[in-house]
């Protein structure tokens, strides 16, 4: 499985969240680039209180910080059973309000 991340066609840097120019070399020649989506789940936390009523029925929710091998960090939902510090793989799903969201799951 692979994901797409914004990357710079000049210097090759990947970035997230997306920007209008490359965060490293400041050129605007950006394009979606394929990435394995693998990295380390640095840390996770359990959300019990939300400011958005759309989430209330789904609480508690586990969120985490994933440090991808390509050098970017991503906030993601975290599947049950994953351990902080372990290897994970990102996939994209549709979240509430039709926003695409990252989920960290097991490396297949």
């Amino acid at each position: 499985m692979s994901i797409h991340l914004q990357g710079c066609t000049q210097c090759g840097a990947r970035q997230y969240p997306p920007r209008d120019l490359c965060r490293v070399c400041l050129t605007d020649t950006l394009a979606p680039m394929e990435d394995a989506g693998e990295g380390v789940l640095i840390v996770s936390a359990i959300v019990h209180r939300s400011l958005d009523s759309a989430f209330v029925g789904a609480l508690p929710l586990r969120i985490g910080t994933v440090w991808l091998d390509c050098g970017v960090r991503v906030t993601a939902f975290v599947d049950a059973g994953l351990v902080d510090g372990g290897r994970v793989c990102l996939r994209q799903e549709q979240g509430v309000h039709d926003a695409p969201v990252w989920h960290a799951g097991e490396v297949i």
Partner: protein
Amino acid sequence: MAVRPFDGVAVVAPTTVPYVRHSDKPAHWWVGRALHDVIAAAGLTKQDIDGLALSSFTMGPDTTIAMTEHFDMAPRWIEWLPTGGASGVMALRRAARAVQAGDASIVACIGADTANPESFARLVGNFSRFSDLAVRPYGAAGPNGNFALITAHYMARFGARREDFGAIAVAQRTNAMGNPNALLGGKGLSLAQYLAAPPIVEPLHLFDCVMPCAGAEAFLVMSEERAQTLGLPHATIRGSIERHNAYFDEPVATRAGWAMDRDSLYAQAGAGPEAMDCLQVYDDYPVIVAMQLEDLGFCAKGEAPQLLRQASLAVDGDLPVNTCGGQLSCGQAGAAGGFLPVVEALRQVTGQALGRRVPGARLALASGYGMVTYDRCLATAAAILEGRP
């Protein structure tokens, strides 16, 4: 190039517009009331104020320039500080340089915000492009989500326990006793109560989180000569630093800009952390207090938990921290929370504390931390004030 000293500049008239949990008044009222009170505290008139520096999250489309029209002022220098928790120290720094350069004679520095049940969710819902796109869709936990991750990571990496963060919350609540402006000051907090609190975003529980409220904090910056002529108790600025987006390569924040610049801060002051009589740090969450103890040189990185097990942060303790109770006890009045460390430092070193005073306090360190646009606060600043009562 070495930082030029802040010589000849005085900070006066620590002013607090009493906080309330909810307010039906707009932020403009809170700014105006702070302006009224800070001018009165110094025995001046509105016409004496020729510089105005403001910070607020809830003024809608308005900034400092609009306020000049609201209040019939014609200042020759203005500043707008959209940097929340770091805005107080940043306002102080900018105002001091304006006074040194002669661009302004007397600068009013004000942080003010209103609060109602909807305002906090609205603020979080439109805070930054990154957070709208890449943080809010993950449970809309607001800053509690980001700081739960920072706290959990800090605990795992440095062996901190909930009790260590509890020691901060409990000490600050003790410090708040006697401060009539602390919204939670009348409610004591025991470690058992802290530990038994409901989870918000684990590992954060209720007493790790500040209570949003309305309020304002303010001070004036002028020449030392003017402060002496007016007979005002004042503080001078012994040193100050500022840094933004430090250590941006680190996957989860374990330190922030203070660590990059503290040597400069203490070199400017000609005094180290051991010389500080009290420390007023930004306390949006206890882990950030721990981080500042480390990054400002009161202990090594990762050693704040050990320090907290040995030293008391109470006003009469070994290391008095957030002597008015901090935001954890006073409430977080938006951008005023970023002014609170400066105002409380000024109160302590000039003998104008609202509550308890550190006996004989002369040197105080105030620091700020603001603006989580993605997964950590970006803006850091600190200043050392010396009282000249």
